[in-house]
């Protein structure tokens, strides 16, 4: 790493003032083993019923943070010790995050994989299904169509608005829009659902109008502010020197934005959009209100209710029948499917970013 290269002193006998290489990692592993032994003793003494792996990793890492600071302070002095402390704290933060996330993923995969790989899961809907069969075709189609429509609505609006705010926006309108985007991030998801439902009841004149498109509008309301916020942040980071260089060459402003500003920030913008989609694809409450429930496949975005994966997962969990395991298995498998869809989405986003971002000499 650059920083190591730069910070490393000339290798000679002067290394006396440094901790040996790799000592940090050995210390970390040592702390884990030590705490592992402590928890093992607690377990053997009957304090806990099973081995506490979370406690081991967590307490071991904390112990490591303290030890490395003290050691480094003694050997290397205050500045290096502080650097070591921050390094270990940052690593600790990462390990702390991994604990719940790994637990969550493990729970989903362990409970969902078995059911998901059964052939019926991706070939059947839930129409006329009462037993352990059945699948998510109807919910999968619903989620893909509704989310795609939501993205088609909100990406242009969101991206153009952020361009307006960064490149054109001056004066009152820009301030008002910034203000409103902030307000929009505060719309509770279920309110977005109720709003979309009421809007379409008004437009269609049918008080019970529930369809995919009203779900899409509800999701778009939630998605637009995220797209604006993240794109705005990324556009702002494009150095002004690039814009000025472009203007100096006589390139019109709109072409400068299209050819210079957006490509430079495309990686960040794509990340933002992917995150926004990921954020809304798992929404449950607004879709239950706006898009409704069905057990059958419905391709038509504009007529009749559409099922979506999160709504299906929630329904399977909350409306368990006599044989509860059938329902719970389907719920977890659905959650796993949803995560996999977003994974594919991420891959596509990376591909987009790779194609469009300029090859910088970094």
């Amino acid at each position: 790493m650059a920083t190591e290269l730069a910070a490393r002193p000339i290798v000679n006998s002067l290394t006396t003032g440094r901790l040996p290489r790799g000592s940090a990692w050995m210390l970390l592993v040592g702390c884990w083993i030590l705490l592992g032994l402590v928890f093992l003793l607690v377990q053997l003494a009957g304090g806990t019923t099973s081995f506490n792996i979370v406690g081991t990793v967590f307490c071991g890492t904390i112990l490591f943070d303290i030890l490395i600071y003290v050691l480094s302070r003694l050997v290397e002095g205050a500045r290096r010790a502080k650097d070591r402390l921050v390094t270990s704290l940052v690593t600790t933060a990462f390990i702390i995050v991994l604990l719940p996330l790994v637990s969550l993923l493990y729970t989903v995969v362990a409970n969902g994989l078995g059911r998901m790989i059964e052939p019926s899961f991706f070939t059947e809907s839930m129409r006329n299904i009462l037993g352990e069969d059945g699948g998510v075709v109807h919910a999968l189609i619903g989620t893909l169509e509704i989310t795609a429509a939501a993205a088609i609505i909100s990406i242009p609006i969101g991206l153009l608005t952020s361009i307006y705010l960064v490149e054109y926006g001056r004066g009152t309108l820009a301030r008002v829009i910034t203000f409103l985007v902030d307000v929009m991030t505060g719309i509770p998801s279920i309110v977005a659902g109720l709003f979309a439902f009421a809007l379409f009841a008004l437009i269609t004149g049918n008080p019970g109008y529930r369809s995919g498109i009203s779900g899409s509008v509800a999701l778009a309301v939630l998605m637009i502010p995220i797209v604006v916020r993240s794109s705005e942040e990324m556009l702002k980071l494009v150095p002004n020197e690039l814009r000025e260089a472009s203007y100096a060459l006589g390139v019109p402003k709109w072409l400068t934005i299209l050819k210079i500003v957006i490509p430079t920030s495309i990686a960040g913008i794509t990340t933002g959009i992917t995150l926004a989609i990921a954020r809304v694809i798992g929404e449950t409450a607004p879709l239950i209100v706006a898009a409704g429930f069905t057990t059958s496949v419905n391709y038509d975005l504009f007529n009749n209710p559409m099922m979506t994966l999160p709504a299906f997962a929630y329904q399977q969990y909350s409306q368990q029948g006599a044989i509860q395991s059938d329902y719970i298995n389907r719920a977890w498998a659905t959650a796993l499917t949803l995560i996999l869809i977003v994974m594919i989405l991420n891959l596509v986003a990376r591909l987009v970013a790779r194609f469009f971002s300029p090859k910088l000499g970094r």
Partner: protein
Amino acid sequence: MVTNGTYRRLEWVAPAPSCNQTPEGNTVSFTRFGSIAVVAVAAALVLSSCASNEGTTTGSTGSPSALTGTLSGIGSSAQGTAETAWAAGFQGANSGVTVNYNPQGSGAGRTAFLGGQSDFAGSDAALKDTELATQSPKCAAGTKPIDLPVYISPIAIVFNIAGVTTLKLDAPTIAGIFSGKVTTWNDKQITAQNAGVTLPSAKINVVHRGDDSGTTQNFTDYLSANAPTVWTAAPAQTFPYKIGDAATGSSGVAAAVKSAKNSIAYLDNSAATGLASAQLKVGATYNTISAAGAADVVAKSPIAAGRAANDLAIAIDRKNTDANAWPNVLVSYLIVCQTYKDKATGTLVAAYAKYVASADGQAAAAKQASSAPLATDLAAKVAASIATIK
């Protein structure tokens, strides 16, 4: 994207073309594979015009039915599982029909039905007088909706105490526990009824519904009828006392009881699988929870007075003391128009309701949702009402 950034900066940091090329190449081929997979999945979805289980008649009836159309219902989540079973049975016999039931909740169901948003509603409570005065756009002008009792579910008192499998409780004790007046398992009031059972001296962990529900309404109604001196709160959808843990939905309550030792809760019987259920003192005996006992109580309860002729709203007799009776019971209604503005919808709803109240429909719900099938005479009354739906 992200990693692009990472790559670029690292490339700059330590120029090492060979290291950089390999993963880059790998990633490209991987993402390319990913995009191919996406296209393949999308194509498969578009090409498969229908899920493999759709478009076929699974019912045993030989002749295809003439009914076609889509029915939409909104309402009680307690009925949700049963509605799935009914929709499956009805769609199986009539392949041209689709029944969509949205278990948003009873209140939402009644509001939606009266606002013309759905063809029928499922509700844990019969329509109130003010609601009956509303003209639903679905119903023909001047006609009122009717309540049909179609789903009966006994409410179980479940508990989780290590080593204890049977527990006998009377209504005042239950009221005491759930209102915070009885706080430990070895309280005299409990031990007096449970000779021979070793109860711990631990604190009682009460778990109740955190969301508003028909189950809470019926449970509190039972307690205020049978233990009015202890349970002083009025029957309500919201649990009235600030004690114990609240959990969301039947499945949430069941999970909470399973995870917390020395806990007790009330639950729809369908969600009580795998949990020990207490016996309830009815009259002089302790009765075990049973579908038949619940159906019996409902069948012997009077029809609420002052309603339309075909409206079968039931005033549940909470003080029924028959042998095996289980008066801690929830009745859920199918709410439909007496006469629909749209004839085709009327025909479809009538056919669906007929199936729901039939022996087949009730048996399907009992199998799927552990509900209590309607007793014969009540079923006959319901069927007679349904025959008048137009």
